[in-house]
């Protein structure tokens, strides 16, 4: 019986281990620095003298969008399951929090967690139901799901349809908060979800997601349980978007089927993930910003906003199919490669002659 191939083999040479450690650390360092800068800037933003109230509100709105797009990126970017239905999870999160607040007086933070959890349960169920779907079928399936949820919130009385549900002012730990306070709640939540996504995609679970995305045959033959990991990806993705949904509903103290019964959120979130770079940690940041800001600045010219969005989307697909974040990351990656070489860390890592390869058809 084979004891263990990896223990009986020669120990790994320290050189390659050091190289790997360096690689992983520089990569991580960059992410930390970027994230640190971003969150520091966001933290200071509302305190700046020229910033007005509506900007803070809009800022919170962008943060929520980024978070929702993070949810999409887990499923579409890392696991390769295209979703055109994440607006449904946004709605589920929003309605859960809103109904809990209305009927039980639950405040923002527990409402957010509840919204995420209920959404995750739906995500789990959907993952199971659509276990065998891929590609276009998954897209249509999730789209159908979003419409289904839309039809429910429009028609089932408890959701109060297009009249909508008005909510009392938000409180956190018993203190009433305004837009300003809410901005910080959203910011802290985004920091937490970002930390989590970062940890997730670098973990063995994230590796399994990517494996399923790139070749489910190879993944399964390596022991990745498709059922487990697909439903896990669905649940996590739905959880994050659900949390964003709760915030999205609570920030305006009002939710209605007019907003959540529509497919627009679903489509926008997919666009956010794709434009930014759905398999990049900072992709949703760029994409979320883009999608949240375009209609805002062009509200007067609603139709131009549409055209602009379409042209921008196609331009990104043609010029940067892996998303804007990937284009931004390119020089950073080149820089890292150069640094590694300069440090004399391992010139062989940059390029090494392979074994000669032969022919074959």
């Amino acid at each position: 019986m084979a004891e263990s191939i990896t223990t009986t083999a020669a120990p790994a040479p320290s050189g390659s281990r050091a190289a790997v450690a360096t690689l992983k650390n520089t990569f991580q360092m960059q992410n930390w620095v970027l994230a640190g800068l971003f969150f520091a800037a966001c933290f200071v933003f509302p305190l700046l003298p020229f910033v007005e109230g509506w900007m803070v509100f809009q800022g919170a709105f962008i943060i929520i969008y980024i978070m929702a797009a993070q949810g999409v990126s887990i499923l579409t970017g890392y696991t390769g399951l295209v979703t055109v239905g994440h607006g449904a999870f946004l709605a589920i999160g929003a309605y859960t929090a809103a109904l809990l607040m209305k009927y039980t007086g639950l405040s923002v933070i527990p409402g957010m967690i509840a919204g995420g959890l209920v959404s995750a349960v739906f995500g789990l169920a959907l993952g199971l139901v659509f276990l065998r779907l891929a590609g276009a079928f998954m897209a249509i399936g999730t789209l159908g799901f979003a419409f289904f949820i839309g039809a429910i919130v429009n028609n089932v009385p408890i959701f109060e349809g297009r009249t909508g549900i008005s909510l009392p002012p938000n409180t956190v730990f018993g203190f009433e908060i305004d837009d300003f306070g809410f901005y910080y709640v959203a910011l802290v939540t985004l920091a937490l979800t970002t930390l989590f996504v970062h940890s997730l995609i670098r973990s063995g679970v994230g590796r399994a997601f990517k494996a399923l995305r790139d070749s489910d045959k190879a993944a399964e033959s390596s022991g990745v349980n498709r059922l487990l990991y697909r439903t896990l990806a669905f649940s996590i993705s739905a959880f994050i978007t659900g949390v964003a949904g709760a915030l999205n509903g609570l920030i305006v103290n009002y939710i209605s089927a007019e907003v959540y019964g529509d497919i627009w959120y679903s489509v926008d979130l997919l666009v956010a993930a794709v434009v930014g770079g759905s398999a990049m940690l900072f992709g949703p940041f760029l994409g979320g910003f883009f999608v949240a800001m375009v209609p805002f600045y062009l509200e007067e010219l609603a139709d131009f906003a549409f055209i602009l969005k379409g042209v921008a989307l196609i331009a990104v697909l043609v010029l940067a199919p892996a998303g804007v974040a990937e284009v931004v990351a390119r020089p950073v990656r080149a820089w890292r490669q150069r640094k590694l070489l300069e440090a004399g860390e391992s010139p062989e890592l940059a390029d090494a002659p392979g074994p000669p390869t032969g022919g074959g058809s």
Partner: protein
Amino acid sequence: MTLLRLRDVEVNYGAVRALRGISLSVEPGTVVALLGANGAGKSTIQKAISGLLKPTVGDIEFDGHRLNSLSPREIIRLGIATVPEGRKIFKDLSVSENLRMGAYSRSDRAGIAQDQEMVLDLFPVLKERTKQLGGSLSGGEQQMLTIARGLMARPRMLLLDEPSLGLAPLIIADIFRILKKINADKGMTLLIIEQNVHVALQNADYAYVLQLGRVTVEGTAKELQENREVIASYMGTQAHAAAG
């Protein structure tokens, strides 16, 4: 005058160099076999000749035309019809629709109708099934359909990729009998890519043996039938000794 000539052709398939300098020539009216085990590069040659892959080095010439940069559409118009490997018929098209697609490059209605009669006479099994979907045919019938479909282009040369693949010996014999007949009656040039040495050498005039993207042995079919190297290339080096 030589009909088809490959000169030092190299083809890269993604990162793999699948052909490493192939030279061969096919005289008009002859049957030439290209033999080789799996992975020798046989299908790559087919794709290079029919225009699906472009050679990185070397030349492919047909009847004085350089094929290197031509599209499959232009190549079929010059007179090379391909019978792809693996019985690639259109499964959701009926037999007669498959034949009609074989003649896609032509627009002479009368000639097409005439040729359809002709190929159905060559393959009587197909005649009874013109309305049947390609996918419902048996393996042998599908192979016959791919050949018939190739003939519909009224080519000067038919390029066949492993026509014996996965077929029972009796059906293989039947198919090769018809191929010989096409060659004899119409003077059609045939380039047959094969793994089945026996049947190929029995029916060819001249043959090339391909190994790891190179031609290692060539000669008349008779010469090769006696040649132990051919067997060796199939059965591993020790088989050489064993067979000897």
